[in-house]
């Protein structure tokens, strides 16, 4: 009897310990609780740095496996519903976006060019979207990422750091030269032309890492080589944040970035294997994940998305697939 009681007590303690272990305390009030990995009936669906796209309306998540050129759709409980792309032939999707109506917009690249086309919810290819009215400075525009917000598509060329915003018929609405903005931000405190020239030389090959757009049209992106994350408001004001380093709150190799509806920002760090949380005032709130073998750990996290329920999706390397965390406590700040 006593043995059973002790056994039950140990089991209880173990259960509590495991529950606590799944909760990574970022800061008092902010919590990230590991839920599961995106899975099918055979278990975790493996992938290396899947590109994530959230269907906000249905809380479904799309994971594009770049290596397999396969798009998988998962339910709001993380189970695979379907996949498509295997019969696209020579078309290799590199990014996709989804509208409120459930229309998919697939960006694919090809030799010396790229294509953007619509798909229905079954992944059946529909009309192509031909972009019109690109300005001259977008001459070599070669996007590899697409995002959707409120009737507009945001096409991102990570290497030239240009963003083209188009409507659903392909008409160019406006553009952003993120590279020029970042370089100006980087050199604004320099006191001499020589110092500026030196900094400019250091920034020749900077590029956009992660990119996202929130419901208000505010853009978020990372510049890994500068250990920087940025928020670009619709009025053109650029804010940057981040300090290089290996300690809590500091940037190693930053990658994906996403913001929730309240403006809390989530930044993944490949090198440190964490997700860093910042509040709308760009104050560091905490981080979670860390390299390790436990389910709640992360291994080289990359793309990240967060839905309206506070479920955070993080793509990883090493075929770890996509981990899902429940973020709570932010409203208490």
């Amino acid at each position, binding site marked *: 009897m006593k043995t059973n009681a002790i056994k039950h007590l140990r089991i209880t303690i173990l259960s509590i310990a495991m529950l606590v272990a799944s909760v990574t305390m970022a800061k008092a009030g902010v919590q990230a609780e590991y839920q599961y990995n995106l899975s099918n009936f055979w278990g975790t669906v493996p992938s290396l740095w899947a590109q994530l796209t959230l269907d906000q309306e249905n809380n479904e998540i799309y994971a594009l496996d770049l290596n397999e050129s396969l798009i998988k759709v998962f339910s709001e409980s993380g189970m695979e519903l379907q996949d498509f792309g295997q019969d696209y032939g020579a078309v290799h999707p590199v990014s996709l976006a989804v509208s409120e109506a459930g229309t998919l917009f697939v960006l694919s690249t090809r030799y010396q060019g790229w294509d953007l086309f619509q798909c229905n919810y079954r992944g059946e290819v529909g009309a192509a979207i031909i972009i019109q009215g690109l300005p001259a400075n977008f001459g070599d525009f070669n996007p590899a990422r697409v995002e959707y917000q409120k009737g507009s598509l945001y096409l991102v060329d990570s290497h030239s750091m240009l963003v083209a915003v188009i409507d659903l018929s392909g008409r160019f609405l406006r553009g952003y030269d993120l590279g020029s903005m970042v370089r100006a*931000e980087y050199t604004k405190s320099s006191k001499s032309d020589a110092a500026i020239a030196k900094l400019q030389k250091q920034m*020749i090959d900077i590029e956009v890492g992660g990119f996202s757009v929130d419901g208000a049209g505010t853009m978020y992106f990372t510049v890994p080589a500068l250990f920087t994350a940025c928020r670009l408001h619709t009025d053109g004001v650029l804010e940057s944040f981040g300090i290089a380093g290996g300690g809590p709150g500091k940037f190693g190799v930053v990658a994906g970035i996403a913001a929730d509806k309240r403006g809390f920002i989530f930044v993944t760090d490949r090198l440190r294997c964490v997700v860093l949380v910042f509040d709308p005032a760009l104050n560091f709130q905490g981080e979670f994940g*860390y*390299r390790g073998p436990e389910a709640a750990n992360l291994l080289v996290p990359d793309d990240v998305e967060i839905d309206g329920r506070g479920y955070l999706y993080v793509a990883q390397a090493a075929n770890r697939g996509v981990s899902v965390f429940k973020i709570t406590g932010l409203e208490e700040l």
Partner: protein
Amino acid sequence: MNSKKVYLALTTASIMTLGISGSAMAFHDGGVAKCNGCHSMHQSADAKPVAGSTANSWLMKGSDASSTCLNCHNGTTKGGYKIATADGSALAAGGDFFWMKTSWANGRTTSAADNHGHNIVAKDFGFTADADLDNAVAPGGTYAATKLGCTSCHDAHGQVQGGTKQGQKPIEASGSYGAVPSTPDTILGNYRILGDSSYTAGSIQNDNFAFNNDAPVAVALNGSGGYGASVAYGSGMSEWCANCHAGLLVSNSSTGKHPSGNDVKIDGYAGNYNSYVKTGDFTGAQATSYDALVPYERGVGATLDPASTAGPVDGTDGNVMCLTCHRAHASAFNNMARFSFDDSLIAEGAVFAAQAEGDFAATAAIYYKDNTVVDVHATYGEFQRSLCNKCHAQD
């Protein structure tokens, strides 16, 4: 029973930076970078072990050395210092490790991933050792395939001849871009921070595999042209490869192997090289004959300009090297070749049909040089034969 720990992220005062600080663009800077770029002093939090490797006592931010490197050098698409991409689009002269995970086939031509390049082991990024038992050790050598990684060739600490501990002067700048030390009593790093004759190579830098030959001399184009997309080779490349592939370094073909090395001058082949433009076109001139798809070493003491288009001068300079035919990291072709060895007409190579059928992305760079994808049809013509003919003119 082990209780599991709660991971506490320590937070201090709010960190908000207006303005940008720091740049990774000179991370290695020719020598050893900041330690916490690759190492974690306390495993980030609470001294947890690094995942995947109980033998990793080097506190690396990766399951192995190569995974640590690829935290930065791996990318989704081409760009700058990315030498492993998700779509094979990298244009770095060394090649894209994407091909090490990509097999393709068309008709009777098969091209296994394992045969595309150096089979580095990087657990976090899905790179595994060569599965071909014939390659259990390096061809022409003894280096174990299971130990192959980035640090088998590259000294992650960028030391020159053992570093300052061995009496060397401090490294002022990278030795990859043709800089000249401007500060007295300083030196440049090795080209591409390759290990030299004081280096003991290994996937974990401690396998006690001693190099005998020094790092090669070469100059890569820096900056907007791509890091290392254009390279002027000077000398010592074949000798350096022979650190592991000694049996393949021969000075004449009587051994049944193609000769290469500092002493294997282009000599009598310079005329072919300079006049050969493409199959059937011998209108080339020495001033513009250099073809980066068939590079050669310009010789000891030569002026190295990665932008130079000049070809060899017969008998006075220029020697064939391993990289004349092979890429250092990987390529789309068997035996990590720069161009197909398996097609009679390279413009109609099986690799293009495989690409058209979707074996790999349309953005994958198959033939490329000087930071540009080469349209073989447009550049060399429909009836271009193997680029071995650049020297041998047997077409």
